[in-house]
């Protein structure tokens, strides 16, 4: 009985001093934008339902987003993107599996802005390539905003672009990520 009381007290104390600095941070409403600039045309699209999470313990970070959920200003552009270039019925998702390299330097229990390299593998159309970028993590009131940008070449991911429209699509597409993570457990 005495032991149980001691264990309960220890557990209560430990719980009381636990901050939101551990565990998993997650969201299903992250933003990814891509932007292609050429002298002929600028093309941009947004996805606001990106599923992503990271582990505060080991820095593992993962993303999954539906290709069909990228919204373009012009419906025809969206149609061509999905049907001709991305073949999004056959390859419906893009995923990223990586690590926040300096997770130990980010104090998730203290408001502030931190940076860390993020390295991992990006898979699009069943092609997996290494990606490295610098992530900016802003901690405020227990929430974590993460921002990062990197460029990718669509031809590296077997995106076939007809010669006729190739001048309209950049071979260095800018990917911008803006995510608000909340603590899960």
């Amino acid at each position, binding site marked *: 009985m005495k032991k149980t009381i001691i264990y309960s007290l220890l557990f209560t104390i430990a719980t009381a001093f636990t901050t939101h600095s551990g565990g998993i941070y997650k969201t299903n409403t992250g933003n990814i934008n891509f932007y292609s600039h050429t002298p002929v045309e600028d093309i941009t699209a947004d996805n606001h*339902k990106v599923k992503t999470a990271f582990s505060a313990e080991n820095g593992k970070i993962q993303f999954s987003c539906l290709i069909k*959920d990228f919204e373009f200003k012009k419906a025809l552009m969206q149609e061509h993107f999905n049907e001709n270039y991305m073949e999004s019925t056959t390859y419906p998702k893009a995923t990223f599996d990586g690590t926040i390299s300096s997770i130990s330097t980010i104090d998730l229990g203290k408001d502030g802005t931190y940076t860390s390299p993020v390295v991992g593998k990006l898979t699009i159309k069943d092609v997996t390539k290494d990606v490295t970028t610098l992530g900016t993590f802003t901690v405020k009131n227990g929430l974590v905003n993460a921002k990062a940008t990197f460029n990718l070449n669509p031809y590296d991911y077997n995106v076939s672009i007809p010669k006729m429209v190739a001048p309209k699509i950049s071979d260095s597409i800018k990917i911008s990520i803006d995510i608000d993570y909340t603590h899960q457990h």
Partner: protein
Amino acid sequence: MRKITILSISFIVLGILLFVYRMFNKPHTDVLNTKANVEMTAIELFTYFDTNEDSATIKYSDQIIVVSGVLHSKDLSNELEPQILIKTNEDDGFIRCGFKPEYLNNINSLKESSTIKVKGICKGLNGDDDLELLSDKDVVLSSSILIE
């Protein structure tokens, strides 16, 4: 005779230009005024995707679907696309419906655990068994509107 030929060619060229212009500027699917391709419960839709994702993606993605079910929660964390979750028979599986920001008031008026009906464009199943942090799954609807 020459005048008629020139006039005819002009009309044809004008017609082609008009067609190209309209194609290039065609609007996005108007979910509100387009008849749904299929109507089913949230449990049925989720089960189709969960059982055979490839076949469900071919059959239902890009289709306008009316889904009925019990509201699990509202996810208003992204003001660019307020979202709701409809329950399925899986604890970590939902139908995630995204709305245009102008529908925020309609979403706010919804009561949790109420039975609702949503019409939207199916985008597929998000979540991945190979990614251990993202093993929960959502069948995603976009450009959604509330029917009931």
